[in-house]
């Protein structure tokens, strides 16, 4: 067998993993790899303007398609610039392989130029990482990295690749399977536990399904829909699970937790059976832990054993893939629980405290999101930044399909939305992709406008511009006597977002009046270019309802009286 270089082995291995697209930024120690890339059509390489943009784009691609996202950056600062993107993917269990260049093996540990111990740095924010010291290990490492990234509870994997390993040659043999003796995720649930779950569900009088991102990851939306059809149990989808169950369904209660709906939170608190599927009892969902669903028996289906009984003690745990477990569970449920009164009670709560805002003649951010939903018929892929824009997007855009709402839930990374939109658009070119942004967070990765324009990746951006770091300002208003310490951005004057968009070769539109919202959105959709709409919204609008930090989730500001 003839030998090929490490750089060629890497490209060939990526092809074997069916990687169609990768995002990144070149640099000194990656020169051998980029030289081979010069003649490579597939995988297609997208040059971002910052490594963080590359990581988020790979993440957005992964969330939109369910495939492994791939990003690549050079050693030292290139690699450390990926860190926020890797941590973002880790917190939300997103399959990603991040490849970093490294200095020559003989120089590692010598404080060489552009050297950083990236395996050390990323250890706590990756599912696993590798430093490849010998070219003969490279193909195997890539195989294992992809296997680890996409299986079990997915997550990011870093491959650190020294420059000499890219240059050295070895016979290429790509393994058929990754064989890792210490890694074998449990997929099928325990039969006995599934039977116990079925019994508990049949007997329940006030059950609620608390669904998390795991349902989307495992592709269990059909099984979930079938479970609801069969039992009539109402559903609350966390931020990560938006789209796992149709938003237009009458049994969908919306989001639970801090900015969830009052009726979802009351339903959780009053329930006698809480069925958690692929969710992890995050503090933004549970609020005060010892008050959380304290009358309920708790079922927890999750692929990660360490998620079970971590925050809340679980009565019936079941380790396994959500899709597999739900399939079995459906077979074991023989009769519909008697929950008519319960559903009626929740409907009453819904009428008493619906999701609402003051819909007057002012330009309010919630209205913009609602119009965006109408104009795209709820069919767009929405990415968000973090803060008020994210919560309004979650509350007022109704998603019926999974993998259409992409947001940094766990880490809460500002600057995620634009690069993620670029990744999503490349993964789903037929979809309209909108980044719902704030004027603060859009500026964190604004440079990726150039990536979108250069590569004709036509994403749309709706900036809910309130001239503030809105969510922090909201907390300052409510809990710090309106002392707006360093949250005023004055994005009214600087930068001029319309001109900024135009300077990148994108289209900029400014909207200051309510009556112009729909027109602007429709124009953005029709325009065959990247478009940024600068919505000058009410400056001091708040996200409501709201559970103050550390409170029980039924004690909401703007909730039920």
């Amino acid at each position, binding site marked *: 067998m003839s030998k090929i270089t490490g750089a060629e082995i890497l490209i060939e291995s990526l092809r074997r993993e069916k990687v169609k697209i990768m995002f990144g930024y070149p640099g000194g120690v990656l020169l051998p790899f980029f030289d081979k890339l010069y003649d490579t059509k597939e995988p297609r390489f997208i040059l971002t303007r910052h490594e963080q943009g590359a990581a988020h784009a790979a993440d957005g691609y992964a969330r939109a398609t369910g495939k492994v996202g791939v990003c690549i950056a050079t050693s030292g600062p290139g690699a450390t610039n990926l860190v926020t993107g890797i941590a973002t993917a880790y917190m939300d269990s997103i399959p990603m392989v991040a490849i970093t260049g490294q200095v020559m093996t003989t120089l590692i540990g010598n404080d060489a130029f552009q050297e950083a111990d990236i395996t050390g740095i990323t*250890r706590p924010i990756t599912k696993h990482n590798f430093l490849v010291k010998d070219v003969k290990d490279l193909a195997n490492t890539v195989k294992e990295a992809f296997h680890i990234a996409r299986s079990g509870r997915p997550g990011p994997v870093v491959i650190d690749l020294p420059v000499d390993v890219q240059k050295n040659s070895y016979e290429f043999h790509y393994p058929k399977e990754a064989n890792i003796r210490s890694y074998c995720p449990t997929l099928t649930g325990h039969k006995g536990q599934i039977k116990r779950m079925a019994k508990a569900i049949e007997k329940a009088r006030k059950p609620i399904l608390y669904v998390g991102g795991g349902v989307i990851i495992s592709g269990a939306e059909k099984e979930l829909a079938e479970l609801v059809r069969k039992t009539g149990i109402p559903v609350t989808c966390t931020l990560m699970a938006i789209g796992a169950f149709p938003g237009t369904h009458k049994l969908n209660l919306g989001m639970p937790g801090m900015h969830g709906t009052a009726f979802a939170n009351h339903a959780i608190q009053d329930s006698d059976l809480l069925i958690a599927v692929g969710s992890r009892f995050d503090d933004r969902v549970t609020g005060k832990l010892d008050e959380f669903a304290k009358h309920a028996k708790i079922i927890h289906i999750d692929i990660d054993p*360490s998620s079970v009984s971590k925050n809340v003690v679980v009565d019936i745990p079941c380790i396994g893939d959500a899709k597999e477990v739900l399939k079995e569970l459906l077979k074991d449920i023989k009769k519909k629980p008697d929950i008519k009164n319960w559903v009626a009670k929740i409907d009453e709560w819904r009428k008493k405290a619906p999701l609402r805002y003051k819909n007057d003649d002012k330009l309010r951010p919630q209205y913009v999101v609602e119009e965006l939903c109408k104009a795209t018929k709820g069919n767009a892929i929405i990415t968000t930044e973090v803060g008020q824009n994210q919560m309004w997007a979650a509350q007022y855009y109704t998603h019926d399909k999974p993998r259409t709402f992409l947001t940094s839930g766990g880490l809460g990374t500002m600057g995620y939305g634009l690069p993620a939109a670029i990744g999503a658009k490349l993964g789903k070119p037929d979809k309209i992709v909108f980044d719902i942004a704030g004027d603060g967070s859009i500026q964190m990765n604004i440079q990726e406008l150039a990536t979108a324009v250069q590569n004709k990746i036509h994403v749309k951006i709706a900036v809910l511009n309130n001239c503030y770091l809105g969510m922090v300002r909201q907390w300052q208003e409510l809990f710090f006597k309106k002392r707006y310490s360093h949250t005023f951005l004055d994005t009214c004057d600087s930068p001029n977002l319309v001109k900024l968009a135009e300077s990148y070769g994108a289209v900029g539109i400014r909207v200051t009046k309510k009556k112009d919202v729909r027109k602007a959105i429709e124009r953005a959709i029709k325009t065959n270019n990247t478009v940024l709409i600068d919505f000058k919204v009410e400056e001091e609008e708040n996200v409501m309802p709201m559970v103050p930090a550390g409170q029980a989730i039924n004690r909401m500001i703007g909730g039920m009286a």
Partner: protein
Amino acid sequence: MAKFILAVLVENKFGVLARISGLFSARGFNISSLAVAETEDPSVSRITMVVSADEKILEQIKKQLNKLIDVIKIIDLTQKDCIDREIVLIRIKMDSKTQDRLMQVLDNLSAEVLAKSKNSVTIQEVGDQKKINAMLELLKPFGILEIVRTGRIAIQAEKGE
């Protein structure tokens, strides 16, 4: 908080110990002692760790360790019939006045004397925690200058025919 002994079998690769210690510090778990060495299979290392935790934290420690790709197996030796040993090296103060009494005590303990000087005696002791702690109590009045302990190692006991 109680003490628990875990035997953790891991891939014998660089960086594995860093993954484990990193996990403990990141999640705020406490390690009381740690002993690492190769096993009968050179591709596998065995880490014997004593952790202080309550039942709930112990559960998380085991689950989080299991999540690490390089961790092959975790054996909780706390509840099991296990034999545990520790080596301790101790330097004790000694002068002409205390010499006879100290040597008598050491002789009663059957402690192995490794080195002797005018001012001190250095001994080795092997045993389980109870034995070593009892011995330290007996030696304290003489003045302990330095103690070096290996941390506990443990193996499951196989007894009977």
